[in-house]
């Protein structure tokens, strides 16, 4: 079922809304102009992942001990056990087999529309 969750202008880049859809709610994120919808259910221990901070992450740099800050605004950090989740795919960073459920999002007539079938 398709749901109008907000006017697109109400979720600016870097913003999100948590809407009461599906079993645990759905977080709708705007990452640099692209919308992504994730279930508010962490695949690790069932935590309310969309209550977590939107942040970035680190990768190793070229030299020993060098680290770079990357993907700022694309990583969600679960408030329960700090697992990192890629907002753009729902994949957890450390275990690609464990994924936060995602939903199709479109913008229609200025509305953000999320398709969530589960109840």
């Amino acid at each position, binding site marked *: 079922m398709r749901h109008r969750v907000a006017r697109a202008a109400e979720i600016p880049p870097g913003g999100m809304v948590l809407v009461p859809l599906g079993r645990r709610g759905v977080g709708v994120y705007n990452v640099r102009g692209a919308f992504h919808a994730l279930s508010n259910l962490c695949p690790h221990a069932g935590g309310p992942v969309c209550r977590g901070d939107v942040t970035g992450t*680190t990768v*190793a740099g070229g030299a*020993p001990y060098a*680290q770079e800050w990357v993907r700022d605004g694309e990583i969600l950090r679960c408030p329960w056990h*700090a*697992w*990192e989740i890629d907002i753009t795919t729902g994949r957890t960073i450390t*275990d690609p087999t464990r994924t936060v459920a995602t939903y199709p999002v479109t913008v229609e007539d200025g509305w953000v529309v999320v398709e969530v079938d589960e109840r």
Partner: protein
Amino acid sequence: MSAAPIPPAAGIVDCAVHPAPRHPDDIRAYMREPWRSRPFPGLQRYFYPAPNGDFDPAAGPNPGTDPDLVARHVLRDRGAAAAILLPQTRGLLPDLDLAAAICAATNDWLAAQWLDRPGFYGSIRVSPADPVQAVAEIERWAGHPRMVQVAVPMQAHQPYGQRLYAPIWEAAARHGLPVAVHIDSASGVELQTTPVGAAAHYVEWSALYPLNFGVHLASFIAEGVFGRLPDLRVVFADGGIDMLPPLAWRMDKNWRPTRNETPWVDRTPTAYLRQHVRFLSHRLEGPADAATRAKWLSLTGAANLLMYGSSYPAWDGCDPATAVAGADSATATRILGASARDWYRLAGEAAQA
């Protein structure tokens, strides 16, 4: 413990034999002045004497000092093809130049008195607190056909993954030499035997001190040393494999939420073990009952990381049957020698089995 069948052609490699000079001062013959006449500690462990003395009475009145007798005991009597000799040094001495001189003299003594005999392979002793001299000592011996590993004390003032030591591990990896970590004898200026103070009795010390491997291992992993040096291989020669699985589970679990603090650790900590880490057997390990022991070996994967080491002539040494109690024949073959031949890339008589 019930005796396990030892495959007749196992080609046993004993990865921990501790030779000693007849008199602790004999290594002075391999030193120049000013070190030759400088006082330094003997070889006794001062604070934790073993119940019947430190040595197996069967090793004779001067245990571990006679190459012929050691060869008879560890090679001929046990049907072993090779023994890796790991002499002790004198603890963490505050004078780093003296510590380096003791290591160098120990290496010269070992090469001159022991390594010309069939079946004996050696360890390059270095003093890690001074990486410059440690690397020079590795370079001095790396080409010796019988020196098959670098050896450092378990005792340390900083965990071994920390960057101070990086040049030593780079040199070992460059030369394809595993690094053995073993509790040194004698006492220099060392930290407390546990992080919350000194153990008061031998039973505490002997149960707990080998577990310091976990601090070094966690450090090697978290500091990214294994990630940067694919060829670095570390042997924990006092055993402790029975404590490895719980440590590995704990590290794997907290790697996920803290990975971003150590982005160079690009896999679960457990994933480094097979390529980078081995443990020598110790008689304290595993359940006493052989059937339970078989389950323990397979459940924990211990058999993949375990190599036989007797600790001869220590009082609490491990014989081949004890090391493989409960193991099936293929596993016993690996633990007793096949794994060590691969790990040390042994050539010569030890390669044939």
